Structure formats: C-alpha cells, structure tokens
C-alpha cells in the first residue's frame, strides 16, 4: 500500500538522543549488519548500560536497616506498590485514594485524597517525615506547600523504564531498603534481557498497545510500555509520537497497519469483537488481536518483570492461534 510507508515518517532527530537500547533505534540506521546480530548487540549494550546504573548506587545507605520510626505518605499507587514490594509498608502512615482502593495491604490506612484533590491538611495531620509523589503538574502547588511546611518531599518519576528503576532505587535508599531495591531492579533487568534475547530469535512485528478505545489512546514512544514492547520483539507503531500516551485517530491506526493489536482498555466489549470491523489492519486480518488486563499497563510498578512475562505469554498465545491458521509468517 503506497501510503503506509508515508504514515510512519523517519525518526525525528530527538529520538536518537534516547537510551540506545530503547525502541530499537539501531533498526532505523541503514547499516549492512545482519538484523539479529544487531539485535544481540543492542541487548548487550542494554546490559552494559544497566551494569553501570546498578554499580552507581550509594553503598553507604545500603547497610542501614529499614527505619522503624520513619513516617511516609505515598501519593501514588506505583510508589505505594514499590514500598510494599520492598517490604516497607510499615513505614506508610497514609496513602492516596487509588492506592487504598487497589492495594489490600494499605486499605486500612488513612486516605489523603487523589491526584487531582490531594488534601494538604490530611497529609500534615499525619505528621510525615517524608511524602513520596510523582512529579505531576496537578500536585505542583501541593508539593510546594508541603515543602514550605518543612516536610521532605521526594518526586519520583515513573514514565520511562529508566525512571521507574531509578525511582525504585532512590526510594529503597531513602527508606533503608537499598539491598531489596537493588535485587528488584536486577530481577527486572535480567528478565528484560532474557526476554529480549528470546525475542531476537523470532521475527519482529509491528504492534500497537491500546490503552483506551474511545477516544483512542495508545502507548507512544515516551513510555516504559514502549520499551516493554521492544523487549518483547515488537516495533511500537506509535513510536513516532514522543509523548508517553498520545491520543491518535483511528485513521492513523488503519494507515499504520500494525501486525499485532494489544488491547488493554477496560471496555466490556471483547477486544476481538471491537476490532473485527477493521479487516484491512493486518493484525485483525491475521487474527492477532489480544486483550491484556488493564492493571498490567496502568500501574508502572515494582513487578515490571512479571508484567513483561505476562505480556509475552499473551503475544505468544495469539501467535500460536494465528500461526495455526495462517501458516509460517513471512517477514
């Protein structure tokens, strides 16, 4: 199809500045190297990058025991999950609404509002030593006020994979759980490398990860989920959008023609039924539409290794189904 190529323009210069192992930038460079060799080199590069990250963390704090007296308020579910994963939920004295609703371990803790409506008074009343937040625009004034009141606030970003791993290590260091954090980070990294290595033996496919159908939101190049797709052997068709979660038009999706649709929206209509109208999308025509549970994607948390494995299993399941009916895939 003539226009399909034009729908995916060559990478913008700024994309080349991201981590070299992400989103398979190497594929865009015109070089005679064999595809799978290049893939393995990318994986090796990724491993080397991460080796540096782990070695760089501060050994002085790592020996400190988890501080019993520390009082922490978490304003974000991914940070709450990290604290629980680091076996440090006892330091929590308050959480945001979403954490309380979705994490049984902290359901009984005092609630201090949500992303849009954090209660300064409720947080201050808990007399925390530390409030952990994500650097959201919505809570900018809230953070400023807390700092003015002398409360320590740590902002931990969780949009890219690097940020999530770094946030977990920073959080672990601050609460005296450096070792646990390092182990978790290492577990994610090794799974990532294993999955990428397994995937490099299979043909790569173009894919989209749908977060919401109507209006249509996809995972763009800026999210950890794009790195997850990349590790699983998929080329995110929406990588041209540098933001994490762009809203795109249906027309763009049809023109992009992904070979796989991963749908993580929580719409009651089954994914296969919803997408079946658009038979010109190769993913639909070849029966490669797969639904994954929404919790897998909406919470960037401490168990990205498990999320990645779940996603790979889902992808393999449709591969086998469509493989049976379609025969060998030519790439």
């Amino acid at each position, binding site marked *: 199809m*003539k226009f*399909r190529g034009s729908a995916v323009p060559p990478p913008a210069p700024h994309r080349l500045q991201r981590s070299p192992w992400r989103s398979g930038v190497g594929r865009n460079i015109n070089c005679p190297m064999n595809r799978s060799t290049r893939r393995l080199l990318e994986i090796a590069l990724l491993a080397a990058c991460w080796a540096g990250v782990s070695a760089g963390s501060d050994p002085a704090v790592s020996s400190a025991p988890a501080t019993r007296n520390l009082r922490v308020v978490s304003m974000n579910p991914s940070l709450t999950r990290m604290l629980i994963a680091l076996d440090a939920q006892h330091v929590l004295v308050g959480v945001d609404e979403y954490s309380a609703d979705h994490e049984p371990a902290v359901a009984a803790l005092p609630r201090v509002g949500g992303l849009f409506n954090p209660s300064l008074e409720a947080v201050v009343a808990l007399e925390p030593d530390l409030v952990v937040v994500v650097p959201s625009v919505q809570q900018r004034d809230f953070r400023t006020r807390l700092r003015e009141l002398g409360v320590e606030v740590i902002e931990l970003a969780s949009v890219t994979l690097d940020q999530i791993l770094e946030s977990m290590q920073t959080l672990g260091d601050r609460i005296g759980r450096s070792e646990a954090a390092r182990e978790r980070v290492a577990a994610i990294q090794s799974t990532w490398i294993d999955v990428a290595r397994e995937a490099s033996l299979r043909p790569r496919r173009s894919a989209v990860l749908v*977060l919401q159908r109507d*209006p249509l939101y996809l995972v763009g190049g800026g999210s950890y989920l794009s790195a997850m797709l990349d590790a699983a052997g998929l080329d995110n068709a929406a990588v041209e959008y540098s933001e994490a979660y762009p809203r795109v038009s249906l*027309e*763009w999706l*049809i023109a992009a023609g992904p070979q796989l649709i991963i749908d993580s929206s929580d719409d*009651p209509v089954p994914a296969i039924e919803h997408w079946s109208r658009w038979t010109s999308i190769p993913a639909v025509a070849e029966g490669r539409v797969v639904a994954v549970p929404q919790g897998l994607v*909406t919470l960037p948390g401490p168990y990205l290794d498990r999320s990645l494995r779940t996603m790979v299993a889902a992808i393999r399941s449709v591969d086998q189904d469509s493989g049976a009916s379609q025969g060998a895939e030519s790439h």
Partner: protein
Amino acid sequence: MKILTPMRVLSSLSALGAILLGALVVGLTAGPSGLGVGEIFSVLGDRDAVGPAADIVLRVRLPRVLLGALVGACLAVSGVLFQAMLRNPLADPYVLGVSGGAALGGILVLSLGSAVGLGYEAVPPAAFAGCLLTTAILYAIAGANARASTTSLLLTGVVFNAFASAAIVFLASMAGLTESASIFLWLIGSLSSIRVEVSGWVAAFLVLGLGSTIPLARSLNLSALGGESAEQLGVDIDRQRRIVLIASSLMVGAAVSVAGLIGFVGLMIPHLLRLIFGPDHRLLIPASALGGAAFLVICDAIARTILDGRELPVGAITALAGGPLFLWLLRRYHQRVLS
C-alpha cells in the same frame, strides 16, 4: 433591506449548498494518512472496496463527515430558533439546559457505566434520554403556564445548566483518571467516536426539526416585534413556542448525544448568516442548516489534520477558527452600515 424573493432564496441556498459540497469534498480528502485524491474517489465509487484506503475513506472519513454535517446543521438551526423564540441574541442551543441534561446523562454513563457493564456505546442513548427528560421539564414549565415569559424560560434553563454542571463536576471528581479524560473530551465536543448507525437518527431529527419549523418562519419573523404585537397580528405564540421548543430540543439532544458539547456553531453561525442574508427566517433557517453543516465539516477537517495523526477535539477548533472570522465580518458589516 432587500426584499426576500423566491429567486433570492434560491440563489442564496444554492451558493450555500455549493459551499457545503466543497466542505464535504475537503472533509473527505483531508486526513493524516496522505491518501491521493484519485485513490479516494476510486474508493468512493466502489461500495464494496476492501483494504486500508477503503476502510479509511468509506468507514472512517465518510461517516464522520456526514455526521459532522448533520450535527452542525442541527446546532445552527436550533440556535436560530432559540434566538428567535427567546428574542435574545445571546441564546444558543445550550441556553435552555437541554445540553446540560444530555451532558449529565452521557457523563453518568461515562463515569459510572463501566461499573454496571455499560460501554461507550451506551453514552449516546443515555445523553439523549437526559435531553428528553430536560425537554419534558421545560415543556411542563412552559406548558403549565402558557403565559410564562421568555425570561422565566431562560432562567429555568440557566438554573438547570448550573445544576447539571455541578453534578458533572461532582461525577468528574469521583471518576478515575481515564474516565476524567473521557469526560473532559466529551465536554469539549468531538466527532471522533462516531458510529455509522447514529447518523440516521440525527438526520431524522434534523428533518423533523426543519419540517416543523420552516412553516413557522413567517410567524417567527413577526414575533421579533414582541409577543403582544405578534399576537395582535395573528400569531399563536403558545403554539409557536411549543413547536420550537420541542423541535429544537430534539435536534440539540441528537447532536449533543453523538458529539458532545460543541460550542460556537449554534451561537455564531446564525448571527453570521444574519449579517450576510438579513433576518428573514424563511431564508435564515435553511441557510443555517447548510452553513452550520459546512462550517463544522471544515472545522473537523482541520481538527483531524492539524496535529498529524493525533486527534484534536473539534470543539477546540470551532471557536478558534470561527471567532476571528465572525469578528471580521461584524466589523466589515458595521463599516458598510456607517458608510
């Protein structure tokens, strides 16, 4: 003021019809995927075509362009009717609270629907139910007291809108992150989430609305003189008000339930056409249908293409594009009148 002759009606409407046709062509050819014009027309000629080009043109762009035209027409016509009935230049399709009722219905499903197994498909019917309920309340108020002044009708609308926005704010602050985003987009208005099936319904309400109100055009002209003077000239004000109220509400409800709250079209297109064609409703009502349709189709084409594959809500474009255009026309008109 020029006299309205059949010839003038015909020529004005033909000109607007040509503009609408041009807008439809622009709407079909504009899009992020860079299809050639030749390819588009070859696909248009073949209803059973398959492939990405056919999916894009026949199943994404065509229904969207048609629905944009219908929604634009509904909003502009009900804008004219409300402005005439209420004798208030600030009246727009949303002034009587019908939109508030529709929005509340739609947003109830958007925010709480997933808990009871209702998907996005349930939003338009819920919004339309909200619109019907509001119309019934308004009708009860206007009908129970046939002498109810336009002021009390307006106030009822304002109060109802205030109530609905408060309820929407409440629902939005209770909703999760994805629901909040949907609510926000729905409140701005967008044609992105359309289904072909709904076009027929909107078209039916537009035809019903035009069919029942064009015969009233002459009496709407007379009511510009004021209720009492119009009655002395033989206008049945109560009947006129009832028909206009129901017809406009149904058109607004149909438009809002499929496209959310698209602003500006219903307020400004009638004024814009009044500046160009004069205030006679015999011309103004059909002209608004054509003008509103063309305007919204063009705005939606801009919304679809300006960000290269990303979607922009059309409600954000209507005022951005239409505002300056309207001010320019208004200025030119005043200069012409003064000279």
